């Protein structure tokens, strides 16, 4: 330290006598040594003050006080800066962890859209944040039945994602493509009710498609009602049910309903992120989606989903407020 002080005094003295580039450059290079010796900013000011006192005799008292003041300020500045840097580091650690978690979630909840003969299926599922609170589970036994579960967990982000992993394992363990939708919801409800806190719940529309008879069987637990378009009558039906969300009461019975799909009929399954138009009070989002789907029903199911997603994004000024999931099945 003493050597540093001596050297600094020489450099400073040279600069005071001659303010040329070379003397300034020597001073700038001195920083490397200060960093190597771990000298703090306030210590640098202290070294500067001492050197100045030695170089200039009769340095005014007020200047010395001003330096003392600056040293104190810099001590606090240094502390705050360290605190800030440590927060930034923590934030970076969290960001990395989130990325890892999101990657794990993507792998866990990866969905492959089945491609059966005679039935066209499309899907768009986009999370609002890194992790998705919506989930679509397909199961196709490559025989007669195909099942589709469209799920939305309360909340967003990490808590929703953790709950969703549980739902996925529940579906994996108890479900076969030919299970009755009402049975699947009853069993899942028991599992979820045991595992979540009082303010948590899951909404789900569970459906089964019989590829031999074209019967679509559905059950809903508090989920956004699906839309069914009957192409012969040219009308939409809202598949409404008033049955309870999953995870609220231990024993809940669910009903199930059948629809026979004919050529060019389609069904839209979605989460509430699709119909949530918070800022537009006098707007009927379901009616708008009905018209949108109708206007693009010449497209295949995947293109229809993408088209609807694009149009809704524009309406939301590209700022969706919730996880967004839409599935279309088309005969």
């Amino acid at each position, binding site marked *: 330290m003493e050597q540093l002080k001596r050297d600094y005094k020489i450099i400073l003295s040279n600069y005071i006598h001659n303010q040329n580039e070379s003397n300034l450059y020597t001073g700038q290079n001195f920083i490397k040594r200060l960093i190597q010796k771990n000298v703090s900013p306030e210590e640098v000011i202290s070294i500067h003050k001492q050197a100045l006192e030695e170089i200039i005799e009769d340095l005014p008292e007020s200047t010395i006080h001003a330096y003392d003041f600056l040293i104190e300020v810099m001590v606090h500045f240094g502390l705050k800066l360290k605190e800030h840097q440590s927060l930034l580091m923590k934030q970076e650690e969290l960001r990395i962890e989130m990325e890892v978690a999101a990657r794990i979630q993507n792998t866990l909840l990866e969905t492959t859209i089945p491609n059966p003969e005679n039935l066209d299926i499309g899907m768009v599922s986009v999370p609002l944040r890194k992790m998705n609170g919506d989930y679509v589970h397909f199961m196709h036994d490559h025989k007669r039945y195909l099942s589709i579960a469209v799920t939305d967990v309360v*909340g967003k982000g990490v808590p929703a994602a953790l709950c969703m992993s549980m739902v996925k394992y529940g579906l994996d363990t108890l479900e076969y493509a030919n299970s009755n939708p009402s049975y699947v919801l009853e069993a899942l409800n028991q599992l979820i009710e045991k595992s979540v*806190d009082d303010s948590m719940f899951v909404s789900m529309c569970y459906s089964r498609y019989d590829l031999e008879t074209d019967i679509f069987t559905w059950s809903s637990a508090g989920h956004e009602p699906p839309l069914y378009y009957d192409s012969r009558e040219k009308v939409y039906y809202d598949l409404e049910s*008033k049955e309870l969300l999953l995870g609220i009461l231990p024993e809940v019975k669910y009903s199930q309903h059948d629809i026979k799909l004919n050529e060019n009929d389609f069904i839209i399954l979605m989460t509430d992120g699709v119909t*949530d138009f918070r800022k537009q009070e006098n707007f009927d989002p379901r009616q708008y989606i009905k018209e949108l789907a109708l206007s693009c029903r010449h497209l295949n199911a995947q293109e229809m989903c993408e088209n609807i997603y694009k149009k809704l994004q524009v309406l939301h000024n590209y700022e969706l407020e919730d996880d967004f999931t839409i599935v279309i099945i088309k005969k």
Partner: protein
Amino acid sequence: MDVNIQFRKEGNLLIGFIEGEIDTFTAPTLREELEKIHLSTEISVELDLSKVSYIDSTGLGVFVAFYKRATKENANLKLVNLSSRLTRLFEITGLSELMDIEEGGISHASI
């Protein structure tokens, strides 16, 4: 947008007037306020939602948790003056079959 709740006591009836939007960000405030309410068999709680313009699923969770606590403590709970869109939200989630809900309130409210 924030949420706030004002209480008025009329004998054994506690009326809570909730105002604002209940979403992921404001739900914790409302949850804390509702948790402070002392519930018992003698108490009836009425939550007036006429000035609630929006509820998302996290907001719904706050009412579900409060309903569960009220049921456990044998207290009466009623949600009143819901807009038609709020009523619909409680209907499609099956909560209207479970909880005591009364429609009414301002027409421009939305879910």
